[in-house]
């Protein structure tokens, strides 16, 4: 009896062992079969997905924390070709919702390139349009009977960020724009493109959930805080637009800078564009230098440059404010005769009178008294002919001819003294004049106030660009310029604040000498004189209402200065002096 049990047990054990061994053998056979090799290859294809991780582009704020450039979500709409069961319906739906040609879409889906599995039908689709299409897809799927494919199956939506400018065209000359490929052009967007964009990473991401830890973390681009004051920028742009219309000017530029720190508080240039619609660039600008005239378009500034000539002469001891000069209405330098702007003789003058009446003859005399070496040494120290190094893309250096250059003639010493035959950008002159408005130290202009990274803010310190003159010279000339404006009852004066400045009316050089009847009207000024808080440069190109800077650019300066005092919380001189009393 026991023996028969033993046999049965052995039989069952043997059968079970046989089944077990068979299963193991079958597993081994399947795993090593030719089909298994095919499946392994297929599995390997789906084991990883090549993905490009784009960091979110850093935002740009104004100095008071207002967003000037951010990001918004747009969609890539595409189809997984193997999942599409009704290409006609897909093409019609996409065509209708996104405004594309349905027949073209259908043709693309029916004849895809070899081995293509996923086809992009549209990119940079607005989130509202994408949402409408998604809703249609969901509604279609809900109406589809269970077990059947929806007519819009295979449609996929991939969100990704795109640059957005919530303020429209405001400060567009400073900001620049970003192309669809994510590259910055002009202004801050180009200058700080590397910092803003971050570094895209392209990696094979495992689909195996056990390897989820391998999903890369891409740090976002750095956030930038600009020195720009949004409200002042908007006011300055409005003043510029109104002035262009009022004075019939072709184009114009207004720059407001803090003379102590070099911070650009506002920079307006015409024309402007909405950087969110960057594709309009070619229809607005003929060449790149027009994007921001304040830094990219050197021009002959005319009499505003006299402040540098006078600063050099005062600093070198060539003249003092009281140095007498008898203006006969003409002076010969290098074989050429120089005349005043009105061809008149202004008789006995001192140096304040020379600035007040903007006498070319007087300033030509001053430069000849300085001598070419001294004069050009000062112009060089003021940074003429050199880049300011402003952190905006596309800066031009201008041109200062010096003795020894093939195209320099002795008469240039005289004409350069009153801003002819020398080309500068408005920003170059602002930087040079910051030495006069300040304490003799020249400040480098900049548009970046701070960078924010990993929750920390890194401020950009002011950078000095040398001391071309002494503090005493700076104060002396600042007073001379303020007196000259007051004596002239200039249109640049503003009630309650003492300002200093100088007008400029420059003929425009053409292919055959200077153009007749066309001028560049300019004004450079700052205030309050005893403690400058702002510097303003105004350039109106070819004003038709009046060719004179004193009648066009000077009143524009007054408007900007008045706005600046309010928006920058600068009390009138008497209140400020009262506060300063111990």
């Amino acid at each position, binding site marked *: 009896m*026991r023996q028969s*049990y*033993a046999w049965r*047990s052995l039989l069952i*054990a043997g059968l079970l062992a046989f089944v077990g061994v068979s299963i193991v053998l079958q597993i081994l056979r399947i795993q090593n079969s030719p089909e298994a090799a095919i499946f392994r290859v297929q599995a390997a294809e789906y084991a990883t997905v090549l993905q490009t991780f784009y960091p*979110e582009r850093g*935002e740009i*704020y104004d*100095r*008071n*924390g*207002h*967003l000037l450039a*951010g*990001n*918004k*979500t747009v969609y890539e709409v595409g189809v997984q070709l193997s999942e599409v069961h009704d290409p006609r319906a897909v093409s019609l739906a996409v065509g209708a919702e996104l405004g594309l040609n349905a027949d073209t879409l259908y043709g693309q889906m029916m004849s895809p390139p070899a081995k293509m599995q996923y086809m992009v039908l549209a990119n940079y689709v607005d*989130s509202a349009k994408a949402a409408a299409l998604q809703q249609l897809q969901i509604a279609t799927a809900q109406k589809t009977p269970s077990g059947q494919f929806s007519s819009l199956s295979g449609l996929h939506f991939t*969100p*990704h*960020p795109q640059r*957005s400018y*919530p*303020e*429209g065209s*405001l400060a567009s000359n400073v900001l620049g724009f970003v192309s669809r490929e994510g590259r910055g052009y002009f202004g801050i967007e180009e200058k700080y493109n590397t910092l803003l964009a971050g570094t895209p990473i392209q990696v094979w991401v495992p689909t*195996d*959930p*056990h*390897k*989820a*830890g391998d*999903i890369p973390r891409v740090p976002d681009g750095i*956030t930038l*805080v600009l020195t720009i004051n*949004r*409200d002042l920028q*908007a006011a300055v742009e409005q003043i510029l637009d109104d002035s262009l219309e009022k004075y019939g000017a072709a184009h114009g530029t207004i720059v407001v800078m803090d003379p102590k720190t070099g911070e650009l508080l506002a920079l307006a240039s015409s024309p402007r564009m909405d950087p969110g619609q960057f594709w309009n660039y070619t229809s607005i600008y003929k060449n790149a230098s027009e994007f921001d005239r304040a830094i990219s378009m050197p021009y002959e500034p005319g009499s505003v440059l006299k402040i540098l000539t006078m600063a050099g002469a005062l600093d070198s001891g060539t003249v003092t404010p009281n140095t007498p000069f008898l203006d006969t209405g003409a002076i010969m330098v290098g074989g050429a005769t120089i005349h005043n702007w009105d061809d008149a003789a202004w008789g006995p003058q001192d140096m304040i009178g020379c600035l007040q009446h903007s006498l070319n003859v007087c300033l030509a005399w001053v430069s000849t008294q300085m001598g070419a070496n001294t004069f050009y040494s000062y112009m060089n120290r003021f940074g003429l002919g050199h880049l300011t190094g402003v952190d905006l893309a596309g800066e031009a250096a201008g041109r200062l001819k010096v003795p020894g250059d093939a195209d320099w003639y002795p008469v240039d010493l005289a004409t350069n003294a009153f801003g002819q035959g020398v080309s500068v950008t408005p920003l170059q002159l602002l930087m040079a004049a910051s030495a006069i408005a300040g304490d003799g130290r020249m400040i480098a202009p900049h548009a970046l*106030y*701070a960078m*924010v990274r*990993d*929750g*920390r*803010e890194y401020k950009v310190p002011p950078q000095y660009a040398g001391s071309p003159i002494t503090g005493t010279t700076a104060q002396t000339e600042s007073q001379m310029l303020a007196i000259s404006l007051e004596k002239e009852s200039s249109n640049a004066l*503003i*009630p309650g604040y003492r300002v200093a400045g100088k007008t400029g009316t420059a003929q425009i050089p053409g292919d055959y000498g200077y153009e007749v009847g066309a001028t560049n009207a300019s004004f450079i000024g700052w205030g309050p004189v005893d403690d400058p808080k702002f510097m303003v440069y105004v350039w109106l190109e070819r004003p038709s209402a009046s060719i004179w800077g004193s009648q066009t650019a000077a009143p524009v300066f007054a408007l900007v200065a*008045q706005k600046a*005092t*309010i928006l920058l*919380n600068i*009390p*009138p001189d008497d*209140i400020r002096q*009262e*506060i300063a009393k111990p």
Partner: protein
Amino acid sequence: MQISSLRVNSLVHAYRQAPWRIQRQWLGGFLLAVVGIAMIASLYLDVTAQAAISGRQIQNLAGDIIAIQHNNADAETQLAALNGTAAMEERANRLGYQPVDPTVVQYIVVPGYAAPQPAILAVAPALKPAAPSIAPEYTESLIEWLQRALRTKPAAGLGRQP
């Protein structure tokens, strides 16, 4: 007494040499091994399944993070547009406000008043969670535990002082 003792000894001897007993010993050992392997396999399967679920959740959460970041950026841009200069000016005009006339502005000296300073956009860094205090034995899979054990096992004869 002796007879009974001999009888017991013979029975014990017979019991020890019973073939079915030896078979049962083998079978018991085999079943014990099978049960042990099954337990380890089920444990491993459970840990692997949990790891897979967690991995899938991580993948989904990574996608959610990106989506939320996009939504945040969208919302921030929309808010900026609503508070933009053009929108604010339009709203101010609608409410009857007018641009200030510089000639009527009155300045009052307020002792202790500090002029507004540029905005500080830096936010306090997020608090980092403390290092996990759970021992690795409770978080790692069987394979990971084996790998760690093999890695950290000291070589024979080393690490001991005489």
